[in-house]
């Protein structure tokens, strides 16, 4: 028996840590410009909170694109559905949300989140079956039909809940802020960061430690081979699509509470940011999406404070800069 090519040295196995340093570097660079530590801390936390919500909204989109090459411009519909679910769920639970106790508030918030996720997932299922499935592999049609789906979803929400902006108030114990070294730290932002981190860790665990996760990663790289190994990629895809919709619904609900208002075009408005985030991160990469979300949101907050005039274009500039450095995003997938 020939023991050829056992290799002499272990192949290089570097983790690519440069992208991870980017948000840290951005925060560090922003500090001297902002000056006061308390202001910097407030802006940084606001950025991270927003980043985590964008991450929840965008993570499903990047997987859906990575796995099936599907460009879903209707993803915002799930965000809006989640936002309305906050209102729908909070109305009967008013007694819980108005109690001045965090644990009682969470008793309302957690079921509301689960309801938002379940509903968005169900809407996602219908969306996939009705709109996405007939146009597999046809990008132009995907863009048109999913944009159409978004419009139909928005109009349905208007028809159900009226066209006005609906105010939404945070559960009592989540209002206001905590004092932290002279800086005011909004409680709800802390919660958003915690929820975002939980989502990220769950996704990482699922993608790296479970067979379904391995299948998703393998499918993102080569779906033909996944099928040749005997797995039905379509079934996997609809699962991913629904999970991604659920996360978008969760993000939409968190976002509505953050803005303390609900309206049907919220989802559509977030689509530009979510696309920027998944392009920066590298299409199909959840880790890249996470870092991209943090970068984009931090920049919005720092730029909004320092140079409000460029705040609006700052994300485009960031995207251009990242793509000049890594043309296929921070964590490009090997096969694309």
């Amino acid at each position, binding site marked *: *028996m020939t*023991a050829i090519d*056992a290799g002499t040295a*272990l*192949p290089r196995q570097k983790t690519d840590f440069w992208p991870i340093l980017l948000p840290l570097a951005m925060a560090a660079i922003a500090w001297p410009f902002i000056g006061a530590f308390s202001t910097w801390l407030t802006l940084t936390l606001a950025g991270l909170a927003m980043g985590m919500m964008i991450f929840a909204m965008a993570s499903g989109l990047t997987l859906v694109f990575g796995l099936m090459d599907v460009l879903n411009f209707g993803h915002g519909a799930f965000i809006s559905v989640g936002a309305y679910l906050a209102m729908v769920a909070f109305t009967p639970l008013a007694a819980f949300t108005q109690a001045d106790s965090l644990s009682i508030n969470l008793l309302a918030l957690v079921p509301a989140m689960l309801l938002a996720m379940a509903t968005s997932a169900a809407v996602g299922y219908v969306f996939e079956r009705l709109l996405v499935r007939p146009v597999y592999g046809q990008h132009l049609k995907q863009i048109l039909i999913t944009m159409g789906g978004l419009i139909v979803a928005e109009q349905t929400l208007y028809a159900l809940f009226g066209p006005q902006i609906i105010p939404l108030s945070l559960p009592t114990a989540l209002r206001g802020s905590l004092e932290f070294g002279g800086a005011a730290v909004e409680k709800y932002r802390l919660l958003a960061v915690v929820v975002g981190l939980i989502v990220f860790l769950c996704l990482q665990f699922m993608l790296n430690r479970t067979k379904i996760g391995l299948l998703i990663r393998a499918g993102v790289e080569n779906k033909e*081979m996944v099928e040749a190994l005997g*797995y039905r990629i379509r079934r996997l895809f609809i699962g991913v699509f629904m999970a991604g919709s659920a996360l978008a619904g969760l993000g939409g609900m968190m976002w509505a509470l953050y803005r303390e208002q609900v309206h049907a075009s919220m989802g559509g408005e977030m689509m530009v940011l979510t696309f920027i985030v998944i392009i920066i991160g590298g299409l199909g990469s959840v880790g890249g999406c996470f870092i991209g979300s943090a970068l984009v949101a931090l920049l919005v907050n720092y730029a909004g404070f320092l140079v409000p005039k460029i705040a609006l274009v700052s994300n485009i500039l960031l995207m251009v800069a990242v793509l000049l450095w890594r043309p296929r995003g921070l964590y490009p*997938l090997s096969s694309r």
Partner: protein
Amino acid sequence: MSDTLLALSGVHTHIGRYHILHGVDLVAPQGRTTMLLGRNGAGKTTTLRTIMGLWRASQGSIHFDGAAIEGLATPDIAQAGIAYVPETMAIFSDLTVRENLVLAARGGPPDEKRLEWIFGFFPALRKFWLSRAGTLSGGQKQMLSIARAIVEERKLILIDEPTKGLSPAIVVALIDCLKEIKRAGATVLLVEQNFRVAQEVGDLVCVMESGRVVHHGAMADLAADEMLQRRLLGLSLDSHQ
């Protein structure tokens, strides 16, 4: 004559508007290694992909283990007991060696004994067990791709040009492996440009040309008949010997 495990008859395949296979007839008997030879572009890869359902046969039938499979979807064909080692190897480079094999073992965690058997001829896989498959050398990737096909027992293994682009030393290791797979009783349909490999491991041979099988018989007969080799496979073979 042993039982026929796989039989293609009159298989036509179109890719887009190109008519690639023009009525392929081919059998792979149980427990034997059948070589599929032919010049570049003859349609060998297309034949394997058609068997796997990755291209759809536009005409003709494919029988495997007593059932017609030409209408089935790829995952169902794989589950019927066919493993595929594509020309491109198609390892999942973002996954570790272990994870690649975990996915290939549909029935549960890979069997320890079988892994030991595989490590016996592919020690590199044990060594790089937890490394990302993308960091492996070309030869090691080929080993992983073959290991994926044999990590669980399959009735039929389709292998497409495993020695392409590999150094002679690795080719020797692959020949050992192919013989070992054969000894274990597997049925193999092997596409190979390297005539020496074909000679060493093939029991039977089919030669393709322009989307048809133009010759079939015992490998030993073809190996002994240089005129026939020249006529069927062309002079390009000399460079491989």
